[in-house]
């Protein structure tokens, strides 16, 4: 088959960090080429380079054998590259037709010849089986149809190469089947597709060839017929088990929290829980592994009282939880390191000091007469003590929390959540965006809490982190528990397969 695109030795550096390092990718005419990799493996960066959003630090892109420089998305479109983003870029108040002709540079003159355009679009949609209703506003059509509009838009602008970024993420199973039919039609008409997905099932079903990225580098390119799910999963996770720094516990104490068949919005595959049963014992760290957006956020919010489950039973320290409020869980000494520290964890416009005592100003330690009088000096002294103990680096404890670096912000939250000696700690992506030193500090702190008898529920998209600290590993996929594995000598291949939904 004829080669359409070749990306050679693509390197993209952000500061000192390599997002892509010496990546090679070639896409042939009429093939579905899958990019497979974990979060942060460099897939999005590579596609942004291809689409002209980033300029590569090194490397060359060839289209039809000729080297090209792609300096903007407009130029990428001109060269016949179409991108369907995971989050659709449609103007919701406009009709399908208006969205498709929007930004079309071929229009000459002021007026749009609607009838001619419509005819062209209808021809395209019939040819590729992209069934859409042109006169409906975007808000009135289903997600699957919106995706077809995005594809049609790209084709209408003359795309020969389509990049589909996790196209199945928002779709129902039937819609996914429909999408695959369309993809087959497109390739049989000579179009090429770069398909980005985490889901092994789909990848094996639709791809012709598969390129695996790991930590910003190409691992290899394989033919679909010559590989298996196990092999792909291993290549994607791609690591020999590095021994953990920490000793793993095998016999935890009695359950701090126990979930039994908990449902939350269970028809939603990516933001719901479907029959989840799980326990966290005293003195153990349970790591939830899984690709982001498989119900982990909802799990964290159920066990901290932010969300009320639709069905099932939650027991906290042996007693049944009847009412789900964050305060109720806090009173049962459940601590929470939320996934978004700026949005959920900190009051950015308040000082470091205020954020440290945020939860405890009602206690007699910090206020007299049932909160009627804040003991400012006690608060200040305590905050200074915590600043030292948790090594929070700021110009003063009066500095606004939003002006601190991510690592120091996280330390504020750690100081607040761990100093009360919780019975259960729910930590969601606790080291996201932190450097190695800060990450190590967070891990040490969690292990310390565990050894004190605290149960820890760790949710992370960073598989290394899960392997490093978890005593038990639970894999979640589409809101369901796919398997429970020991954290001591974890079976990596099985875990990665479970993460991919097999």
């Amino acid at each position, binding site marked *: 088959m004829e080669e359409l695109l070749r990306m050679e030795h693509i390197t993209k550096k952000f500061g000192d960090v390599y997002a892509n390092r010496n990546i090679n990718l070639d896409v042939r005419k009429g093939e579905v080429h899958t990019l497979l990799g974990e979060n942060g493996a460099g897939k999005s960066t590579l596609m942004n380079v291809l689409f002209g959003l980033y300029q590569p630090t090194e490397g060359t892109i060839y289209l039809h054998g000729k080297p090209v420089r792609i300096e903007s998305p407009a130029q990428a479109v001109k060269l016949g590259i179409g991108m369907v983003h995971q989050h659709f870029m449609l103007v919701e108040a406009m009709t399908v037709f208006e969205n498709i002709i929007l930004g079309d540079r071929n229009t000459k003159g002021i007026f749009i010849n609607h009838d001619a355009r419509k005819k062209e679009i209808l021809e395209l949609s019939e040819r590729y089986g992209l069934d859409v209703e042109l006169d409906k506003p975007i808000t009135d059509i289903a997600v699957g149809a919106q995706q077809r509009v995005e594809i049609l838009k790209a084709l209408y602008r003359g795309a020969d190469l389509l990049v589909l970024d996790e196209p199945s993420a928002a779709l129902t199973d039937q819609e996914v089947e429909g999408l695959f039919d369309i993809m087959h039609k497109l390739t049989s008409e000579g179009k090429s597709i770069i398909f980005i997905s985490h889901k092994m099932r789909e990848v094996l079903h639709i791809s012709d060839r598969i390129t695996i990225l790991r930590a910003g580098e190409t691992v290899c390119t394989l033919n679909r017929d010559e590989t298996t799910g196990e092999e792909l999963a291993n290549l994607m996770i791609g690591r020999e088990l590095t021994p953990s720094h920490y000793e793993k516990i095998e016999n935890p104490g009695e359950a701090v929290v126990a979930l039994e068949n908990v449902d939350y919005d269970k028809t939603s595959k990516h933001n719901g829980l479907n029959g989840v049963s799980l326990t966290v014992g005293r003195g153990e760290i349970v790591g939830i592994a899984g690709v982001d957006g498989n119900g982990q956020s909802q799990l964290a919010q159920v066990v*901290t009282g*932010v969300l009320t489950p639709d069905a099932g039973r939650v027991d906290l320290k042996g007693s049944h939880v009847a009412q789900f*409020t*964050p*305060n109720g*869980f*806090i*009173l049962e000494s459940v601590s*929470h390191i*939320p996934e978004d520290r700026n*949005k*959920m*964890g*900190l*009051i*950015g*416009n*308040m*000082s470091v000091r*205020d954020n440290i005592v*945020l*939860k405890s*100003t*009602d206690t007699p330690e*910090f*206020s007299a007469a049932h*909160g*009627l*009088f*804040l003991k*400012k000096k006690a608060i200040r002294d305590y905050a200074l003590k915590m600043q030292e103990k948790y090594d929070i680096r700021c*110009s*003063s404890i*009066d*500095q*606004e929390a939003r*002006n601190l670096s991510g690592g120091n912000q996280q330390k504020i939250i750690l100081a607040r959540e761990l100093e009360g000696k919780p019975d259960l700690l729910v930590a969601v992506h606790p080291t996201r965006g932190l450097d190695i030193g800060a990450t190590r500090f967070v891990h040490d702190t969690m292990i310390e809490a565990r050894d004190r008898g605290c149960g820890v529920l760790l949710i992370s998209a960073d598989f290394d982190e899960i392997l490093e600290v978890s005593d038990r590993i639970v894999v979640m996929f589409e809101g369901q528990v796919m398997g429970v594995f020991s954290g001591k000598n974890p079976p990596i291949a099985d875990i990665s397969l479970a993460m991919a939904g097999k």
Partner: protein
Amino acid sequence: MKHTNRIVNLLVPIVSVLLSFVIGCIIMAALGANPATALQSLWIGAFGTMRNVGTTLSRATPLIFTALCACFAYRCGVFNLGGEGQFLMGAIVSCVISTQLGITGLPAIILCLIAGALAGGVWALIAGVLRVFRGQNEMIISIMLNYVATLFMGVIYTSWLRDGSVPQTVAVPDETQLSRLGDLRATTAFILALVVGLLVYYFLFHTSKGFQLRAVGLNMTAAQFNGFAVKKFILMSFIVSGAIAGLGGSADLLGTQFRLINGYGSGYGFDGVAMALIAQLHPIAAIVVAIFFAALRVGSTTMQAATGVPTSVSDIIQALVIVFTVAGLAMVKLPQFRAVIDRMATKSVQKKEAV
């Protein structure tokens, strides 16, 4: 860092006031008056004699209440634009109690003030309940409720409690009126406003619940995750801010207004919002700003009589102060501006270290 922030936040309104006066002076000069004399007569009109000071403080009193009302709600992150309606409901209830129940004197005053605060609180709570339990926009609801309150007052002074042929209610009996502060025109209502301002300040900055309320106002999601009952705080802030405005209406009626008439209270709510914003939601600053605006209003009459500069020039200055402050506060939040400030701050620190 904190200090530079404070200085900047204090400088913005001061610079805005100066700029507004400069432009005001240009307008005065264009009108053929001597700006210096005009400003002097403006000052004399507002603070020149004890009598004028009294007038200024009495004009400031209702504005202080509505400004505090806005401060309190905004600190909790909800936009109560219904200060005027809540103010009027307080005045209406006090008018009915003081003229219809047959009680007079101190018991009547206390009853009026309590009932006025309650009425304002309940009136604001309507917007609060619709916001919290039905997700409605509290700004629109509270503005609409202003019209309802104004028209309700209309029914009272034109028909139910009409005083003879004039479209106004009967006056509050002499014994139920608030006493004046010595010879001043200002009454104990002004003292009450100061006390409420101090209480609001104390609550917001020195109590645990006030601290939590501010946290809710700055980041509702984080407040919820940290276990605060966000809905309760929102409802409470509506009730309290409405009660402050209602108390203001009640005190103003018993202190200076005495009867409900056409146009009473008009503009107080939005004036209060503007003043709260200039004061950057600080209750003590709000009191100062309210007195400043009242002075501009009171002084402008003297200015017109003495120099022929129309009072509308004072209105222009007031409007410019609001525009400049709001624009200035938006400006100092820009990252470019922050960068300049930070650079200056580091430089001054380095200089100090070098010395």
